[in-house]
Each structure stands twice: as structure tokens, then as C-alpha cells.
């Protein structure tokens, strides 16, 4: 950090009073406006006199520029457009009744947002000034505006002390977020600033706070890192460097501070009095600022050479506490494996310009043969074509995380693999995350910089007691069941990876245990059942411990790399990546084994997943059947899995066909939690969220519905039409449930209640068939053959239901059918249809 002594000469640009400046996006011109009726345009690189524009209003209060025009706003409420080619007044853009306070041009230079002392923000199309979007629901006048780097959102710092984020992609701008309690309540003409300013990567913005610090807030509303303790006076203005690597602030303590984004430390200090506005040159090491005396300082070679190299870097990430893009912990999966995948949260893409150079040159121009500069160290000096099909230095793009080196320039092909994840956990958001969320309770952790604090809460408050502890090992995975909690932490430089089990109740003084894994081994997934602890590691080992820490088995998993595991009583289910399929991604293989009996139930069988589908969660149902929820929103259950080679995945519920989504109005997704009591328990996520967050979300439950036909449209006037398909679906579903229960009863020492449940379900299936027969008979005589088939499907141990079926047919007067049914009943009675 250096305090720079060399001073630049101020140029008298305007008389005393508020003065504003801006660079054009191409950096060739600098425009200043102040309290007199002259606007000055300075050309970068020439020290000569500026071009003056006299045909303007007095008391200008804002200025914004694109490459060929600039607009100014003045205290008399007019917003004027000037041409940068002719340096002449072009036209009046709009007129407000009260003074203009801020102007912002969208990154594509098409929309101008106008904030005045009125309660309305106008967003005007520069090409067609009749095309105006209006934000009308502000409680008090806005003070500052800032466009999101993608142009899709507008941050409004309001005089009521809140920052409002509006989505302006639609005709009617919608409030998407409100952040209260960060900025101060300042009057619109206050020299101090409350401006929320987007970081160039578009994932966060910075606001000056009353404490004279600058806080970074991510788009989801979480406090991220802060720039603390630099200024002794109120902040008057702030700006990110064009690549986001630095933040400049100035305050009434007569200082300009330059902060490094990565470390949030001051890297340079400059002493200038009364700085009220400044601007970074979009490319070069030039910094310009104006003071309240109306002087303009253009400061070439502003940063010292060692700091100036920060300016050369490519787009830098915003200072997150836990950067969601650079982490792959927990459930977060990288989607960078084979090119970039679009996530639903991405801002709308910019389309390629027609007839651009890249289009004309064709795809070869982006190939590697003319890439004579190889980007070896990722420093960004080779001009790579980014995902928008544009060459780089396009700050409008969102930051996409650390880009794997030579992703596009090398021809080496890698299969896309299924990343490992821990079922039931969420990635960091802010400084919190869930480590485990299931029907027993939930485990969450808070990052306190040097350590974490872990809290375990239960749904059943009488049976268990919530607990809380300080965690110096930084556990990143957890499992919770009724008997205990299992944690694991990744290896650090001094400590190997560790597993920690803590039972909920003991009759000795201490029963928790820790095990350190061999050095160099990282935990990829853990699971906990009533009798075993399963740990999967990065060296493809599956380690099985008893609940008291006794290692029972260690073996290497056949399918690798490992993905995840789940367990229920003595059964463990492991998932791993298998051979590469035709679509370039590995197939997902699973194995199920019984640890106690040392039996393999299913060995390296394929998980039935459509192309480009990921597993979102794997768990056992409360009846002990493996269930899987995939990224297409389908819940699958494994049938006949106890017999080798017989297992198959059966869809239980397709959440896309749920009735609540039928209107097409709701956009929601479901985060799987459990399958219990013949219901799917999940958390409903709204508004494009991918993971549940705090406060603790409510669990929802849905009945199963096997996707048989197109969701039957509810027709209240004629319920009979929908009854047939509905009964058919429930027949398939009850038969599936019956077969799952049959398998369970056969494989275990079934209790009496389970056996009676089994016979009850058998009767239920037959009753459903009887109802189906009823529907078929009502439909008409010609459905007789289908009706007979329905009857022949009945298991009917007692023979009573066949009798009843005959009566149903008789009631509808289907005598032929009735005869056939009684014939069938007789054959059954004689035991002749056994084949």
C-alpha cells in the first residue's frame, strides 16, 4: 500500500457545485457536466482544450454516455440527448416536473433510466422515446440507479434507506428484491452516496453503509465480504474497476482509496479534497475525478505498476464468502464438465450480431490453428471466443467461475461424469448451508471465518433434544437418523480427513468416536443406517464401520469415480460412474449389498437415467426400498431389488405432471426429502431456486401417481370419463406397492401386522379391479372382453370377489359376461387354470 505523493494538475472545468463525469464505453472520450451551461468533452490521450457544448441547460445533475451519444439531466427536469459525432444538441429525451437525480444507460446503450425527485423511474428507449417502461411503486424518490451488467435488472437506491432491484426484461418492471437496512436515508441532493453498484460479474453489488464501510451483497440477498475500516468520513462515491478486480471509493475525509477485491485490503491511497465523482477508464490505467470546486483531474498512470497489472486481468469474481461457482462441495455439481450448460437462472443471452466478423469468417476462425497465442496460464491474453460467440473483453457477460484451462483450445476429449454429492445437503449460500435435511431433522452449519457452528434440530422435540456445537474441523457432510449423527470433514494440510459419529443417547459416559482416514484420502459421500456407517472416499474405497467405530469392511468399488451412497439397516447402496455411453457421458451404476449376510443383491446394475440427466438424490424409503429422484423431476423406486438381476426402476411420481402445475402459472421445482408412508416428502422451491434455504422451509407431501396416461383432465360435470384412467393408474400403483410389500415380507421375518397389511393390500387391488369392472360394464356391451380380462386379473383367494363380479355384470344386464365370469370362477375353483 502506498500513499502517492505525485499530484496531477486540476483543470478548471466548471464552477463550484456538483460536477459529474463519465467515460464513453470505448474510452475515447470523457464528458463532464456541472452547474454552468457548458458540457465539456475531453478526448483521451490529448492534453488539448476540450470540446465545449454551450447549447445546454444549467445545473446539470447527471450524465451518461454510450459510444455515439450522451445524455444529461438537469435540475429543471429535462433530459437531453447530444451527439458525440457532431457535438450538438440532438433532442430532448424526456421532461420531469422535478429535478433529475441520476441517469443510467443500459450496457447495450439502448435504454436510459431516469431518476428524478418524482416517485417514478422512467426507462426510456433511446431510439423510440415513446417506448417507456415505468417503475411506479417506489415509496420515496430514488437517489441512484445502476444497471445490472446484463441489462436485465436495475438497482435503485431509494431515499427511504432501501435498495430495490427491479427486473426490467418485461413490459412491466417487476420488483424482484428489496434490501433494507444497508444504505442510509439520504436526501436526493445529498453529496454523500448511497449508490448500489453492480460488480461487473453481475452476481453481487456493493453499497456504502452508514458505518463508512462498503458491503457486498449477492443477488440472493446474502451479505458477502465487506471493505472495512478505510475511511474516516462519509463515502461520496464508489466504483468497481472495469474488470472488477478493484474498488475505488472516495469520502469526505479527503481520500480516494483503491481496494483489491480479492483481499478487501486498501492497495493505494490518494489525498484529494472534495472528490464527488470519479470514473475508471474502461481499459487503460487512467482515472478521472471531479471535485466539488468543479475541477477535473485526469490521472494517467494512476496505479503503480505492481497494482496496474490487476487492471490487465480478465473479469474477476465478486468477493463471496463461499463462491458458489468455485466450490463443488456438498450437493453442488459443476456443470463445466463438457462445455458450459445453461442454468435456468442465467440472464437472457445476447444474440450474436448478424454479419459480425465471426459469422463471416466462419467457425474456423475460432479454431485452434490460428490461435497462435496459447493461453497457458489462464492470464487471458489469448482472445478466446466466449459462450456468447463474441470475442472477449465483453464485460456484459456474467462471470462464469474459474474457467478450466484450455477448455476450448485443446482437442482432448473427456467423458462427462456424474459428480459425487451428498444426498440431502445444500451448497453454501451466504455463510450458511444445510448439511443434511431429512424427516428426522436437519443439520446446518454457519461459517464463522475461523470455525463453523453446527446445529442439529429435530422434528420430534420430545424424543430428541436439539444440540449445537462449535466445529473447528469444518465438517462439510453429515447424516442424521434417529440414533445418531455422522459428520465428516475434508483433509487439511495438517490433518487427514476425519469421520465423527455422535449417538443421541448412550448409557455410558461417552460413546462418540472419531476416525481419521489414511492420508490423501478425501470423503466423497457418507451414509448412516441403524447399524452401519458407510464412508466412500476419493480413492474409490468403500469403508464400512459399525456404530461404535469398528471397521467391518473395506473394499474398492468397481465403478469409479464414486458418486454417492445410501444405507438402510444392513443394506448399502453405492453409486459410481460406469462405462462411457454413446452420448459421451458415463452411465451410472449401482450396487446393493447386505453387509451382515455378506450378500450382494445387485452388482453394478445400471441406473435407468435418460440422457443428460443427473441424479438429484438417492435414499431409502421408510419401507426400505431404494428411491431416486432425478433432475427431470421423476421419482423412481427400485422393485424386486433383493433378487439379483430382477431389479428395475419404476417411476412413482412425475412432478412435472402434478395438478398444481397444470395452470402453467406456477414455476416451481421440488427438492426431494424422503419417501415415507406412501407419500413423497419434498420441499417446494419457488422462483427458480435450486436449493432450500433459511428460514427452515416447510415440508410438503404428495401422493404417488404413476405416469400412465396424460394427466386426466378434471371434468366436474362428467366424472365418469376420468374415472377409468384414474382407476387404471391406481391399479398399477397398488400392484406395485403390493409387490414391494410381498418382497419385504418374504425377505424378512415379517411381523404379524405386516402380514395382515399384505392381505389387506391384496384385497384392495381386487376391489380396484371390481370398480374397474363396474366402469367397463357401464360403458357398454362392447367392452365385455376387456371386462372379462379385468375379472381374470383378480387374485381372489376366497372366491367371493368373483361372485361379486358376476353380480355387477348381472346388474348391468350383461348376461354373457356374467356366464363367462361364473365359468371362470368354476375353473378357478377346480384349480384348472394353473399353467
Amino acid at each position, binding site marked *: 500500500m502506498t500513499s502517492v505523493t505525485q499530484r496531477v494538475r486540476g483543470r478548471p472545468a466548471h464552477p463550484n457545485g456538483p460536477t459529474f463525469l463519465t467515460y464513453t464505453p470505448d474510452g475515447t472520450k470523457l464528458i463532464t457536466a456541472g452547474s454552468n451551461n457548458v458540457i465539456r468533452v475531453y478526448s483521451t490521450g490529448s492534453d488539448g482544450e476540450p470540446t465545449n457544448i454551450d447549447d445546454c441547460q444549467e445545473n446539470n445533475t447527471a450524465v451518461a454516455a454510450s459510444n455515439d451519444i450522451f445524455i444529461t439531466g438537469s435540475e429543471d427536469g429535462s433530459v437531453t440527448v447530444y451527439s458525440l459525432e457532431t457535438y450538438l444538441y440532438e433532442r430532448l429525451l424526456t421532461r420531469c416536473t422535478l429535478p433529475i437525480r441520476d441517469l443510467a444507460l443500459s450496457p447495450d446503450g439502448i435504454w436510459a433510466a431516469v431518476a428524478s425527485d418524482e416517485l417514478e423511474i422512467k426507462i426510456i428507449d433511446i431510439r423510440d422515446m415513446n417506448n417507456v417502461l415505468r417503475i411506479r411503486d417506489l415509496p420515496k424518490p430514488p437517489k441512484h440507479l445502476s444497471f445490472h451488467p446484463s441489462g436485465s435488472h436495475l438497482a435503485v437506491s431509494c431515499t427511504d434507506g432501501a435498495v430495490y432491484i427491479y427486473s426490467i426484461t418485461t413490459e412491466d418492471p417487476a420488483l424482484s428484491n428489496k434490501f433494507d437496512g444497508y444504505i442510509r436515508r439520504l436526501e436526493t441532493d445529498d453529496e454523500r452516496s448511497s449508490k448500489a453498484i453492480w460488480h461487473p460479474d453481475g452476481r453481487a453489488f456493493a453499497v456504502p453503509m452508514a458505518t463508512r464501510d462498503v458491503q457486498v451483497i449477492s443477488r440472493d440477498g446474502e451479505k458477502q465480504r465487506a471493505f472495512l475500516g478505510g475511511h474516516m468520513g462519509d463515502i461520496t462515491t464508489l466504483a468497481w474497476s472495469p474488470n472488477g478486480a478493484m474498488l475505488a471509493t472516495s469520502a469526505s475525509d479527503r481520500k480516494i482509496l483503491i481496494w483489491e477485491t480479492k483481499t478487501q485490503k486498501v492497495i493505494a491511497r490518494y489525498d484529494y479534497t472534495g472528490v464527488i465523482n470519479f470514473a475508471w477508464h474502461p481499459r487503460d490505467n487512467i482515472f478521472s475525478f471531479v471535485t466539488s470546486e468543479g475541477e477535473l483531474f485526469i490521472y494517467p498512470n494512476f496505479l503503480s505498476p505492481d497494482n496496474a497489472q490487476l487492471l490487465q486481468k480478465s473479469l474477476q469474481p465478486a468477493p463471496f464468502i463461499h463462491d458458489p461457482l468455485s466450490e463443488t462441495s456438498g450437493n453442488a455439481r459443476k456443470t463445466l464438465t463438457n462445455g458450459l450448460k445453461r442454468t435456468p437462472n442465467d440472464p437472457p443471452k445476447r444474440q450474436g450480431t448478424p454479419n459480425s466478423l465471426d459469422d463471416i469468417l466462419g467457425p474456423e476462425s475460432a479454431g485452434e490453428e490460428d490461435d497462435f497465442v496459447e493461453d497457458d496460464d489462464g492470464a487471458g491474453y489469448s482472445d478466446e471466443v466466449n459462450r456468447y460467440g463474441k470475442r472477449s473483453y465483453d464485460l456484459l457477460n456474467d462471470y462464469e467461475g474459474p474457467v478450466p484451462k484450455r477448455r476450448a483450445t485443446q482437442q482432448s476429449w473427456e467423458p462427462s461424469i456424474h459428480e459425487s454429492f451428498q444426498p440431502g445437503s445444500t451448497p453454501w449460500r451466504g455463510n450458511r448451508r444445510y448439511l443434511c435435511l431429512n*424427516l428426522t431433522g436437519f443439520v446446518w452449519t454457519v461459517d464463522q471465518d475461523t470455525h463453523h457452528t453446527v446445529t442439529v434440530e429435530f422434528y*420430534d422435540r420430545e424424543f430428541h433434544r436439539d444440540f449445537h456445537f462449535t466445529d473447528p474441523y469444518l465438517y462439510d457432510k453429515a447424516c442424521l437418523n434417529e440414533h445418531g449423527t455422522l459428520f465428516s470433514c475434508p483433509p487439511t494440510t495438517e490433518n487427514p480427513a476425519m469421520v465423527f459419529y455422535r449417538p443421541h443417547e448412550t448409557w455410558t459416559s461417552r460413546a462418540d468416536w472419531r476416525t481419521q482416514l489414511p492420508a490423501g484420502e478425501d470423503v466423497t459421500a457418507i451414509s448412516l443406517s441403524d447399524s452401519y456407517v458407510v464412508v466412500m472416499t476419493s480413492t474409490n474405497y468403500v469403508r464400512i464401520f459399525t456404530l461404535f467405530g469398528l471397521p467391518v469392511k473395506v473394499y474398492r468399488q468397481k465403478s469409479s469415480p464414486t458418486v454417492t451412497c445410501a444405507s438402510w439397516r444392513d443394506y448399502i447402496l453405492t453409486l459410481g460412474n460406469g462405462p462411457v455411453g454413446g452420448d459421451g457421458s458415463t452411465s451410472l451404476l449401482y450396487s446393493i449389498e447386505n453387509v451382515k449376510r455378506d450378500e450382494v443383491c445387485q452388482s453394478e446394475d445400471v441406473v435407468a437415467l435418460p440422457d443428460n440427466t443427473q441424479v438429484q438424490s438417492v435414499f431409502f424409503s421408510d419401507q426400505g426400498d431404494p428411491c431416486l429422484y432425478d433432475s427431470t423431476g421423476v421419482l423412481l423406486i427400485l422393485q424386486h431389488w433383493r433378487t439379483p438381476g430382477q431389479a428395475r426402476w419404476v417411476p412413482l411420481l412425475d412432478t412435472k405432471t402434478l395438478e398444481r402445475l397444470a395452470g402453467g402459472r406456477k414455476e416451481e421445482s421440488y427438492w426431494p426429502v424422503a419417501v415415507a408412508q406412501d407419500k413423497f416428502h419434498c420441499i417446494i422451491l419457488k422462483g427458480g431456486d435450486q436449493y432450500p434455504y433459511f428460514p427452515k422451509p416447510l415440508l410438503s407431501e404428495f401422493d404417488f401417481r404413476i405416469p400412465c396416461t396424460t394427466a386426466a383432465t378434471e371434468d366436474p360435470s362428467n366424472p365418469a370419463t376420468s374415472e377409468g384412467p384414474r382407476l387404471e393408474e391406481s391399479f398399477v400403483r397398488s400392484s406395485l406397492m403390493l409387490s414391494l410389500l410381498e418382497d419385504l415380507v418374504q425377505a424378512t421375518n415379517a411381523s404379524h401386522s405386516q402380514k395382515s397389511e399384505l392381505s389387506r393390500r391384496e384385497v384392495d387391488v381386487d376391489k380396484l379391479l371390481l370398480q374397474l369392472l363396474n366402469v367397463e360394464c357401464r360403458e357398454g356391451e362392447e367392452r365385455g372382453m376387456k371386462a372379462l380380462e379385468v375379472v381374470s386379473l383378480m387374485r381372489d383367494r376366497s372366491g367371493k370377489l368373483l361372485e361379486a363380479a358376476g353380480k355387477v355384470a348381472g346388474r348391468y344386464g350383461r348376461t354373457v359376461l356374467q356366464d363367462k365370469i361364473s365359468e371362470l370362477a368354476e375353473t378357478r375353483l377346480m384349480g384348472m387354470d394353473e399353467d
Partner: protein
Amino acid sequence: MALTLPPGLTPPEVAFLCEMELVTVIPRQRLEGLQLLGGPTVPLIPPHRTPLPLWLALLLKRQNRANIFPPPWLSPSSLDAILQLETSSPEFSDTPPLPRSTTPVSPPFLPSATADAPPDALPYHWLELSTLLLEAASDDIPSADHVRRLLRDLREVRMAKLRAGVEVLEGGREVKMNGVGAMEVSEGRAFIGGVVDGLRKLGAGREISRREREGEEGGLGTGGEGDNEDDMEY
């Protein structure tokens, strides 16, 4: 001495009946199924949602053993929509549709306040149910104060409608009262009953005079019937 209660049910009686409605609870501790006179209850296992009668749910809530899941119509957005409907149309908003079920159900025991209830219709016991829930389980209801305000608005709008409906009675026409809740009936009973009774008396006097006139004109004594009606009235 005879009890001087007005005819019909008193508000506490209506509220008592409402306690038989089913609501959805999220239990916070285990409870085996109870054998009650009204039938057995479902065993409670946290955190599975379970339908319970309101009185039991309130009991468990007061002992902090369960959370009540508010019915979907008791949310600010739904109430807002219903209020819009009520203020824009002269009729009362629709009652929830009857559930599709093979067994017949009667109005007091419809599952109209459970988690699966339709969000866009007020059930029969809406007023007393929401009052009880807001009193005992306001921490389970999101933005309870806003809900309270909306409920008061709704109640005022609907009562005003009910009173306004009385005006047309004078012309001898009828008022459609579909969708009126139990508590509103009980509140309005005294007033509407009084109005109808008064109108009937006035109408009866006019009727007598008309008939007398007719009798004088026609000379034939049809007044006997009128006398009988008179007797019945007083």
C-alpha cells in the same frame, strides 16, 4: 322460568360446532392414535402432516406439541383475491366444491380447512375457524396481522351485503344467501328475522284491508281465511 335466548344458535355454540372441523397439523412429538367417541384419531409421527379435529389441534397447539398448518385460503393472497371478488360482485363468493368421495359428507365435516382445501373459496365455518386459529396459532400463520385485517374487511363487506339484501325483501322478493357462513347466519338471524317478521306484519295488515275491500265488493265472505291467518300471527 323460560330461558330468554334468541332463536337459533348463539355465537359460542357455532364456534363449538366449528371445532369438529378437520385441520392439518404438523406434530412436534409422537402420539399414539386415540380412541375417541367420534372415532379413532390418526397416530401422530413428526413431521408427517396429519388431519385432526380442530379442538384437538388447538389443545396440542396450546401445549406446544404441534403446529397447525393454516388452510390455503387463510393466506393474504387468497383472502385478497376473495375480497376483490366480494367487493366487485353483489353475490357472495362461492363455497368450496364438494370433495369427490363415495361416502356422503355433510357440511360441518367437510375437509375444507385442511392443507388440501381449495385456496379460492371460503368454507362454511370460515369466520369462527380463522378467529380461533388466529387466536391460538398466530405464529403458524404467515403475516397474521395482514390476515386479520383482510378478515375484518371481508366480514364487513359481507355483513353489509347481507343487510343490503334485506332491502329487496320489501318488494316481496327473495334474497340469495348462498355462501353465507355459519357465524354470519347466526349473527344475521335476529336482524333478518326481525325484518322479515315486521314486513310480514305490515303485509298482513295490507292483505286484510285488501281482502275486506274485496269482501265488501264481492259480498262473499272470504274473510274467514284472513281471520285464521290473523289468529296465527298474534
